[in-house]
């Protein structure tokens, strides 16, 4: 098949036909020749039989009439024919009596003629039959005819039966046969040849030429010079072959172009990816290595392609359980394929690099290829470490600060504890013993002495109040908050009832609007109301028709409460002093107080994330506002 494939159809098909034609013609010609030959032999035999019989009759007649010369003449006349190679007549003993060649006369035919068979002498003498033998080997026909030669007076028998022997040469006649056959056949051969040439032309024109066209198109296509198809003209199969080929080309072109785009895209990704991309075959032999990989590992692609990927790893990953190296497979458990895994790589210079690797397996026709994407996370690791350090430091710092705070808090607690114990005891002693003095020894004092005693008592009481308020103020900053929803309306009402005396309630009109509910620590907010309402009552105590009104309004995420009185008010230039501890805007003579109430209220409101402020005018009353967020985030 291969030899046929390598020879063009244009040549091998006509050649095949030609060979077949030649063989067929040769066979026909050989057969024709054989037929003609047998015809020739047959006609020659018939001719020889006829001619010999004729000669025999002539010679027997001449001899009978005792004219041997005439008989000889008749024989010689036959001898002119060149095909009569030997013509003799023998007597009964085989001695030649007449011959076309004179030198043979008188000799024994057996001696001088190798083809002569003496057995026919006696055989023919008795049955008088003729024998014609064709010798194919020598292209001869030998003929034996019985002939009555003489009737001589001295003869024992009256009739002497000899043999007329002829050797007929067929060779020239046979040679002529080929010429005759050829003459018959050559027009036939020429016709066949012309037919063949026409066929070659036809094949060339309608089969081979489109085929060549197809071949050239395919070759152009394979070289990538395709212009999108070929045009095969013609009918039937060839035309549909052309159509199918064109369709195939179009499809192939589309696929090729999409493959090309895909390849280009991959190439771009491969070259411009910010991460290292390394691909290996299933044994871990590296087949591609992108520029980032070069940068990370310090190897050039040429240095690593064809080598095992294990060279890029630290010793720990080099061999698997079975002890053979298999590249990335040994580093990454198949279960974790596709997922990131951290590992340590080794650079060309022997230093290590922290990597995040993601491996994917691609199977193409049974070959497993591995693609690995590696990210250099050395910096990230370092930053993580540093962050961890900072975080730990921060935690240390926080715990240190917390400890300091706790210590400070403890100290503060101890301080207020000792204030509450140790400052009270002497006060009690002063107060107690003064009291005893004023009761049991009252007779020994004059009026001034009694007044002085009461001054001591009054001041010690005041000192006690100051201590109580100071402790309360301090406690407000420390106690934890427990938030709940507070019914402000109810709370303000209750506080007013508790803080006011019956006399107050007669003199003061307490107007309370609709107060919104709010979230906060009930005890603390109650303290705010106590302080504000007490203040309002206190500073309007000189007024015969005092009015205290409590209102509420909503502003964004906050609720703003207001308590307004028509009491003595205050000068706005001192508003900054309102909320200071022990800060008072009125004299002790005018109004009693320690100056802690508003400070406590402010501390509570601030702890709730709100604001507190006051507005007032001297002798025209004061308004105190505090805002609270609607939602509390109550932690501590």
């Amino acid at each position, binding site marked *: 098949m291969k030899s046929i494939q390598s020879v063009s159809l244009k040549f091998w098909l006509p050649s095949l036909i030609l060979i077949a034609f030649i063989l067929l013609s040769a066979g026909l010609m050989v057969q024709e020749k054989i037929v003609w030959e047998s015809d020739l032999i047959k006609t020659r035999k018939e001719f020889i039989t006829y001619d010999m019989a004729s000669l025999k009759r002539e010679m027997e007649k001449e001899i009978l009439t005792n004219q041997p010369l005439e008989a000889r003449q008749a024989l010689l006349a036959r001898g002119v024919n060149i095909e009569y190679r030997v013509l003799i007549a023998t007597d009964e003993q085989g001695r030649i009596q007449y011959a076309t060649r004179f030198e043979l006369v008188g000799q024994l035919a057996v001696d001088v003629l190798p083809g002569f068979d003496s057995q026919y002498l006696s055989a023919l003498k008795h049955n008088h039959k003729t024998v014609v033998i064709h010798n194919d080997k020598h292209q001869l026909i030998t003929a034996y005819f019985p002939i009555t030669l003489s009737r001589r007076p001295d003869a024992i028998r009256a009739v002497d039966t000899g043999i007329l022997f002829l050797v007929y040469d067929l060779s020239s006649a046979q040679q002529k046969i080929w010429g005759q056959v050829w003459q018959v056949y050559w027009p036939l051969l020429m016709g066949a040849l012309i037919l063949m040439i026409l066929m070659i032309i036809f094949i060339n024109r309608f089969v081979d030429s489109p085929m060549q066209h197809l071949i050239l198109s395919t070759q152009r296509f394979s070289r990538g010079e395709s212009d999108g198809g070929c045009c095969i003209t013609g009918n039937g199969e060839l035309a549909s072959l052309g159509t199918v080929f064109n369709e195939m080309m179009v499809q192939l072109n589309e696929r090729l172009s999409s493959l090309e785009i895909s390849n280009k895209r991959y190439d771009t990704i491969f070259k411009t990816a910010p991460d290292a991309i390394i691909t290996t075959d299933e044994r871990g032999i590296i087949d591609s290595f992108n520029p980032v990989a070069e940068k990370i590992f310090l190897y050039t692609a040429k240095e690593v392609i064809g080598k095992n990927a294990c060279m890029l790893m630290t010793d720990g990953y080099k061999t698997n359980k079975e002890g053979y190296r298999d590249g990335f497979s040994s580093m990454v458990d198949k279960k974790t394929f596709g997922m990131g895994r951290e590992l340590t790589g080794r650079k060309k210079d022997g230093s290590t690099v922290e990597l995040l690797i993601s491996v994917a397996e691609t199977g193409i026709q049974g070959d497993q290829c591995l693609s690995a994407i590696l990210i250099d996370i050395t910096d990230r690791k370092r930053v993580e470490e540093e962050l961890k350090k900072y975080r730990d430091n921060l935690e240390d710092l926080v715990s240190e600060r917390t400890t300091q705070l706790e210590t400070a808090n403890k100290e503060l607690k101890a301080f207020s504890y000792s204030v*509450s114990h140790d400052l009270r005891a002497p006060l009690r*002693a002063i107060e107690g013993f003064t009291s005893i003095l004023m009761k049991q020894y009252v007779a020994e004092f004059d009026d001034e002495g009694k007044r002085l005693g009461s001054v001591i008592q009054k001041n010690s009481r005041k000192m006690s109040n100051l201590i109580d308020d100071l402790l309360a103020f301090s406690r407000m900053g420390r106690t934890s908050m427990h938030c709940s929803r507070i019914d402000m309306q109810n709370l303000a009402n209750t506080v007013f009832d508790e803080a006011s005396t019956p006399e107050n309630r007669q003199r003061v009109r307490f107007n309370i609007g609709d107060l919104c509910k709010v979230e906060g620590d009930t005890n603390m907010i109650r303290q705010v109301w106590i302080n504000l309402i007490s203040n309002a009552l206190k500073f309007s105590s000189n007024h015969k028709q005092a009015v205290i009104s409590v209102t509420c309004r909503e502003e964004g995420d906050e609720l703003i409460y207001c308590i307004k009185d028509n009491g003595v008010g205050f000068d706005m230039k001192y508003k900054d002093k309102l909320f200071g501890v022990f800060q008072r805007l009125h004299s002790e003579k005018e109004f009693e107080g320690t100056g802690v109430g508003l400070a406590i209220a402010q501390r509570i409101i601030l702890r709730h994330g709100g604001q507190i402020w006051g507005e007032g005018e001297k002798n025209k009353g004061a308004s105190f506002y505090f805002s609270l967020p609607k939602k509390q985030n109550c932690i501590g």
Partner: protein
Amino acid sequence: MEIEQYEIIIVEDNAYDAELMVRSLKEKNLANQLIVLEDGEDALDFIFCRGKYTARNLSSLPKVIFLDIKLPKVDGLEVLRQLKSNEQTRTIPIVIVTSSKEDPDIETAYKLGANSYVVKPVEFDDFLKTINQLGLYWLVVNEKPR
């Protein structure tokens, strides 16, 4: 010196406070069988009949102990703890009498088994009233365990 039977034990390091208390009780004639001890250790020694009080009879228990919290050596809460964890002394009514209003002390005292917690008023009149009431209640009204 003969060891007497005491009805009231006052544990108070401040001599003036102690004196005021004794005076208050005397007004109602309740200070007959009363002893003032100045620190926690002394108080424990006295009650458990240890140290200089070895000769005392442990079985004679007071009707009430007025115990201050802030005391030298062993503080009031520790004294309270020891007394309340001893089988013999746990039944003695103990009234914490202190200057402190600090919440943790109140809670701790009750948790340890204090029978009452009283803050000494600063004003002498109030103080007088309070001590009088305490004396009357614990010595007269209240029945001592047998």
